[in-house]
């Protein structure tokens, strides 16, 4: 029925269109660029909707009025107008458009140009991306844009990335922006199950965007202010990052591009640990006794060297791209093998992508399909940032006496760990398959109206398994028995969007309206499981599969130990069932399942009106409904408005000023990320099972995991932005400056619950509480040289952000967890009225006249220092001379403090005296108590990227169309006063139940690599 309706609609629209024309002439011609014929160019009779698109050979045929003017336009080229004047053949060569401000920028549900944008939007195109080894798309634009702080958690392949656009709005985690890939907003939640649980600390966060092949990306847009993000309503508060993938281009025969990168990486920095001889001397000096016999085997082991390595990584891409009359396609395949500089860390990534566009019905129906399928295999050593008193493998390597032999079976008593033992007997792997499929159909109903239907399907299927075998040393639950965990996560999201667009050009103004409906659901299901007592060939996934096939009916969980077994079912309720008899190679085991779905439904609209091409107005509203809230709070409304004045178009502005635009915007956006499923209802489940150190598994009972709270609602951010874009001398000097203030209220985080409570922390909106971010951003660019064969340009960005929390009314929370020996249960950051998030709260260190520590560690207070950088900056230099090009990119962060938890835990005199290794510098730290002794300035400048490239001049008849060689260096140097390896840290060291992440706590971070990459790019 619906099908018929649509069909009829098409015919009616088509009829409306067939209007008669008078005094017509047929014009034919070929459009080309410097490389040759250009297919897909829009050819339009000016002032009408009469037009066509060039075919394979850049050819076009169009019937036009005799006195018509033809407008030729194509993305990336200057638009040309040519009067027909009776000609019947018009051949045109389009010029590439160098002016940055004419660049097309992808925004929510549409595109605009930099010149016409009313909101604060930045776009980075593929040619400006960072080079080298890139494991996820955010790294491509790290440091490129003012006000966007992107920090990779560590040097681990596939490590999580924190992206902060204009500061941190929320108290809980989830300050990451919304990522939209080809029109599909991605879920904010992880696509990888937590690994581990078997050894302290588990694993580090994985990057959910690793599945995207950086080579497939055309551009990345960053929407910063509410005017730009309000169209994404409840998910726009932290900004929006729109990733657009490449589509087929150029050449009727199709172009193959082969691209290969070979990289070599090594640790950029390491600690100057004592060797055996120095260790013996210093132990004698500090403790008064020689190294005990049990520790001194006569070996001289460099443990840092044992766990790190110089590695080779490779990345290979093969792309086929082709455009034809009526459409284009692009297919790519990539294989990346990234080896981490710690032993047993790697990421393998295989990505295939197919993008198709096709036009039907005289180009009025446009079909677009973007699909990618990927497999990511992560291998991770034991590096959990929340590892307790004994530390992880990195801490173990810093503290293991060099007099121990490099032998996995060297037995260590007490709470010290043998790094060789961990390397040999611990293993953790995560495999993720992801399919992202997007199809859209756009129909031009008439010259004013078009309608679009957009469907998305995103499915990721991940499995994580960790094993610590019976030979794992010094862990009561593992040693002699072995433990393994196996967790799976299937995350599926379905999207449907329908939009109608109305565009109308009036005499001296134009109007562009879009209204739409969107529905998206997010289903997460999977299992968590754990096995203890591993027999020969113990196979946890296999055992679980076998057991699952034997259980009839639905269940939440099951398990067994030597004494008993259980199956717990919720619907219908049954907590008496047992497992059928089964022969197994694992002595005890539990499995717990989950399966839940969240939904979002939205109605939105945006109107853009421009007057005289001088005054631009934008109004946006989105009403979002979420299944995460109940009662009257299910829906939130997020409006915004913006105004821009292109002053440079005014007559009173001289010709030299190529750009001058004032932008004003204000709006409200929301945030519900991180809230999780059904937090507004009373929710009961069987408690998560566990395995005792002796392999004991108790049948879990029914527990309340959430309590009813009908008042739970969106966190919302009120945002104001004032910006000026400017350019002189055809934008040879260009830039923009933005001032903003963002006020986030109804803050959502896991606050302490009034006792008695089932869970000591519950999600609540913090009444009266506000997080305020205000700041200024500056982008500046200058083309020092701009000649035919030589260019030199410098682009600089800097942003200042001030963050503070107000209206706490006594609410407080501790975070910034420390870890390591003697630091269990310690926190160094807390919420303070009028202070920045991540403000440090700890004792001030002081020494007496003899240089001995003289302070009370219980004397804690706010020390007026915090972990958030005030200033973030980037500097890019680009130089080309003929076929040769070079670029350098520096990034820096200033005005923040890092708590050196690594030193506090391992590298100090007190810990050294407990027979653990250290550095000469560590021996000067006389106190192991938590204090400002370990709080250091984190300011740094990094040479993030240096690249050199050469484009070979090829013979016209060569099969090769282009050939490029490049050499790229990443993280070549770091200037900082920080005494640890690297002040840029963002691994989460634990939250003590509040769900508040840590910032700038440096605990045994995965060392950052220095990487040199040799790249080859060939088109044929």
């Amino acid at each position, binding site marked *: 029925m*619906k099908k018929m309706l649509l069909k009829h609609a098409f015919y009616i629209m088509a009829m409306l269109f067939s209007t008669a024309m008078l005094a017509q002439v047929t014009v034919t011609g070929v459009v080309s660029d410097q490389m040759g014929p250009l297919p897909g160019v829009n050819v339009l009779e000016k002032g009408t909707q009469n037009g066509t698109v060039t075919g394979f050979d850049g050819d076009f045929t169009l019937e036009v009025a005799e006195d018509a003017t033809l407008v030729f336009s194509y993305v990336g080229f200057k638009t040309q107008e040519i009067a027909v004047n009776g000609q019947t053949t018009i051949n045109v060569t389009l010029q590439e458009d160098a002016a940055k401000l004419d660049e097309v920028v992808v925004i929510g549900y549409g595109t605009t140009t930099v010149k016409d944008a009313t909101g604060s939007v930045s776009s980075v195109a593929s040619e400006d991306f960072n080079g080298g080894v890139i494991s996820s798309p955010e790294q491509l634009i790290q440091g490129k844009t003012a006000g966007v702080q992107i920090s990779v958690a560590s040097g681990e392949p596939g490590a999580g990335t924190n992206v902060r656009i204009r500061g941190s709005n929320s108290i809980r985690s989830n300050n990451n922006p919304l990522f939209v890939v080809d029109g599909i907003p991605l879920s904010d939640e992880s696509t990888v199950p937590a690994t581990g649980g078997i050894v302290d600390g588990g694993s580090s966060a994985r990057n959910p965007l690793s599945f995207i092949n950086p080579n497939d990306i055309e551009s990345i847009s960053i929407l910063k202010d509410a005017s730009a993000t309000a169209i994404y309503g409840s998910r726009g508060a932290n900004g929006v990052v729109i990733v657009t993938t490449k589509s087929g281009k150029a050449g009727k025969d199709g172009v193959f591009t082969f691209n290969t990168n070979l990289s070599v990486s090594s640790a950029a920095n390491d600690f100057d640990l004592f060797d055996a001889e120095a260790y013996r001397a210093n132990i004698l000096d500090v403790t008064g*006794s*020689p190294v*005990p016999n049990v520790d001194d085997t006569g070996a001289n082991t460099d443990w840092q060297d044992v766990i790190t390595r110089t590695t080779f990584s490779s990345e290979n891409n093969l792309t086929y791209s082709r455009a034809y009359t009526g459409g284009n396609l692009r297919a790519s395949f990539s294989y990346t093998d990234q080896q981490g500089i710690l032993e047993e860390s790697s990421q393998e990534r295989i990505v295939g992508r197919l993008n198709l566009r096709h036009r039907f*019905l005289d180009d009025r129906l446009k079909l677009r399909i973007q699909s990618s399928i990927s497999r990511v295999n992560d291998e991770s050593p034991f590096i959990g940032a929340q590892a307790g*008193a004994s530390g992880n493998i990195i801490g173990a390597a810093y503290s293991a006496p060099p007099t121990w032999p490099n032998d996995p079976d060297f037995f260590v*008593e*007490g709470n010290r760990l043998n790094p060789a033992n961990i390397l040999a007997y611990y293993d953790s792997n995560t495999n993720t398959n992801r399919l992202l499929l997007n199809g859209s159909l756009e129909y031009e109903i008439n010259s004013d109206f078009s309608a679009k*239907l957009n*469907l998305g399907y995103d499915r990721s299927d991940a499995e994580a398994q960790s094993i610590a075998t019976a030979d794992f*040393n010094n*862990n*009561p639950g593992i040693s002699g028995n072995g433990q393994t965990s196996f967790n799976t996560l299937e995350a599926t999201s*379905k999207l449907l969007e*329908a939009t109608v667009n109305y565009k109308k050009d009036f005499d001296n103004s134009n109007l562009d309206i879009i209204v739409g409906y969107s529905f998206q659901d997010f289903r997460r299901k999977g299992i968590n499981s754990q096995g203890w007592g591993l027999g020969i060939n113990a196979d946890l996934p296999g055992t679980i599969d076998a057991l699952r096939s034997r259980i009839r009916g639905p269940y939440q969980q099951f398990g067994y130990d030597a004494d008993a077994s259980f199956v717990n079912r*919720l619907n219908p309720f049954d*907590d008496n069932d047992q497992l059928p008899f089964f022969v197994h190679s694992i002595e005890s085991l539990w499995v717990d399942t989950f399966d*839940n*779905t*969240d*939904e979002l*439904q939205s109605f939105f609209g945006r109107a853009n009106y421009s007057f005289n091409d001088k005054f631009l107005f934008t109004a946006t509203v989105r009403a979002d409904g979420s*299944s995460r809230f109940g009662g009257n709070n*299910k829906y939130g409304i997020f409006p915004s408005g913006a105004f821009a004045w292109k002053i440079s178009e005014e007559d009173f502005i001289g010709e030299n000023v190529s750009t001058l635009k004032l932008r004003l915007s204000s709006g409200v956006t929301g945030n519900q990320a991180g809230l999780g499923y*059904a937090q507004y*209802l*009373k*929710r009961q*489940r*069987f408690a998560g099972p566990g395995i005792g*150190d002796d392999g004991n598994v*108790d049948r*879990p*009972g*029914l*527990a*309340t995991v959430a*309590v*009813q709270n009908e*008042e739970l609602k969106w966190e919302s951010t009120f945002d104001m932005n004032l910006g000026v874009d400017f350019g002189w001398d055809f934008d040879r000097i260009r830039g923009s400056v933005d001032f903003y203030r963002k006020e986030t209220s109804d803050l959502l985080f896991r606050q*302490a619950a*009034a*006792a*008695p*409570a*089932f869970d*000591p922390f519950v999600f609540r909106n913090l009444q009266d509480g506000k997080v305020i971010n205000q700041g200024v951003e500056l982008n500046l660019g200058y083309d020092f040289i701009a000649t035919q064969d030589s260019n030199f340009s410098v682009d600089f960005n800097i942003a200042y952000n001030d963050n503070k929390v107000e209206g706490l009314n*006594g*609410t*407080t929370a*501790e975070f910034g967890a420390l870890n390591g*020996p*003697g630091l269990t*249960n310690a926190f160094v950051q807390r919420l303070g009225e009028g202070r920045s998030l991540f403000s440090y709260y700890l004792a001030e260190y002081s020494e007496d006249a003899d240089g001995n520590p003289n302070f009370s560690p*219980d004397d804690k207070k706010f020390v007026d220092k915090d972990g958030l950088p005030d200033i973030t900056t980037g500097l890019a230099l680009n130089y080309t001379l003929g076929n040769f090009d070079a670029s350098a990119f520096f990034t820096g962060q200033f005005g923040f403090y890092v708590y050196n938890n690594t030193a506090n835990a391992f590298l100090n005199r*007190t*810990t050294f005296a407990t*027979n653990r290794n250290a550095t000469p510098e560590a021996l000067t730290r006389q106190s*192991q*108590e938590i204090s400002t002794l370990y709080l250091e300035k984190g300011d740094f400048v990094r040479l993030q990227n240096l690249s050199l490239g050469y484009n070979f001049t090829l013979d016209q008849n060569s099969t090769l169309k282009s050939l490029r060689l490049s050499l790229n260096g990443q993280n070549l140097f770091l200037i900082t006063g920080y005494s640890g390896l690297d002040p840029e840290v963002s691994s989460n060291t634990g939250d003590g139940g509040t769900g508040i992440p840590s910032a700038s706590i440096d605990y045994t971070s995965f060392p950052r690599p220095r990487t040199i990459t040799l790249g080859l790019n060939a088109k044929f």
Partner: protein
Amino acid sequence: MKKQIKFIIFFFSLSLVLFSCTDLEIEETDSILAENFNGLTAEEANSSLTNMYNSLNNFIATQENLYALSEVTSDALLIPTRGSDWGDNGLWRQLHQHTWNPDHRFITNTWNEWNGLQLNASEIIDERTPASAEAKGEAYFLRALAMYIILDHYGQVPFRDTTVKPSVDPEVFTGADAVNFIVEDLNNAISSLPNATPNGDNQRATKTSAQLLLAKVLLNKHVYTNSEVNNADMNEVISLVDAITDAGFQLHDGYYDIFKEDTDSETIWYRPRAVGERIFHTLHYNSTELGGGGWNGFSTLAEYYDLYEGDPDSNRVDLEGNLLDGQEERRGGVPPQGIPIAEATDPLLNGDDNGDGFVDGSNVGSGFLLGQQYAPDGSPLEDRNGDPLSFTRNFFDAATGDPSLVDNNEVTGIRVIKYNPRFGGGFQNHLIFMRYADAYLMKAEAMFRAGQDPTTMINDLRTLRGASPLSSVSEQDILDERGRELFTETWRRNDLIRFGQYTRDWPFKDPSAVNNPDRKLFPIPATQVNLNPNLVQNPGY
């Protein structure tokens, strides 16, 4: 071409139909969801009880939280820092020095845990829950226990009515109101639960455990109501203990046998949770190979150790367990070596997994470990610095030799161990929470407070434990006897307060805390006072 278009249009229209507008309601795919609480079913109530017992296991097994607040704040236990170990941001030190503040994690955790238990119990007790009388009885007992622990530690008990919304501020009981509420719950438990069985598997709440707890509440009632001891209460304590005795419970001959994973005539309530924390929290890293060695933490003050008869500087036993230094049975002692595997007679003993010819873990003594410690083969053990592993009576700074709670070496302090690793390493699933000797001593104390003479009772116990009889019994004697009998069983703080000695001076207590009555109550966790206006922060915090 047309076909293609038709297909595409069909596909897109189909998807439009598939996803029509949604009401955004979520389904019960992996949990039970409700907008309001309307009682549990009988099956859910039983399962909730299972969950409560499971959580209780961890509340009482860990060396943190309740155990730390009850023992480390007393003269019985302290944890010096040794190098960087056990610094933990001052958590342990503050407890022993009595300098804790409202942010202390164990104070917050203990508050959260036991209050949470109360709320779970209330759901079962709720009239709308059709649970069995026995399940309700167990819930009454667990709620009374939870509220009692909160009353005892914080002086104020928040109570949540399960018939009102969670956003309503919980009411707060103090003093006599709180005591009466708890007593009523316990009477409900007593009337609906069966007796525990002497020498039985007493894992769950029983009439007997409720009687013991009621006796405890009444014995301490004058502390909570800030009044004089009431003879009627004391007489009720006596009759409650008599009822427990009538049920067949009696003192067990063989003190350390009580703490093995088998039945005895004293255990009224235990949880089948491994006792590893109780073993490893005190042992030195090199004390045993079991469990990767000890954690070298908890030790006692010499003055506590000196409550026992025997040589103050030596505490040894021979291989057969004979006491060599004139000590009584409860002080235990350090064996000269491990038990040769061939001579192992007790079926509960470990085997010889490491093949050294000795019962694994049998070189570790029970009770109070002082002086040189020995490996299974009889060789003297060394600490990690290669110095003799010889525990000292006193605590001192390793560098200066001055008495100190911080910067100790690895061997200061007498170690205290009740569950022995020779019986299953740390994995004996037998963590005792209530036992008859406590009831027995409560009766003696009630008699004393009611003006009767408990000397015979006390001496019967002392004789059984190999201590010499007392000619007469003073208040101090009763407290000391409780200290000797019930060490590290989480009642020391409670006892010291009832006997008026919690605020007295002892080594390393901060001068500001001496004779400071405010320290008898812990502060309400800082966030809680802010969250519930019915709570008032305790004086002095």
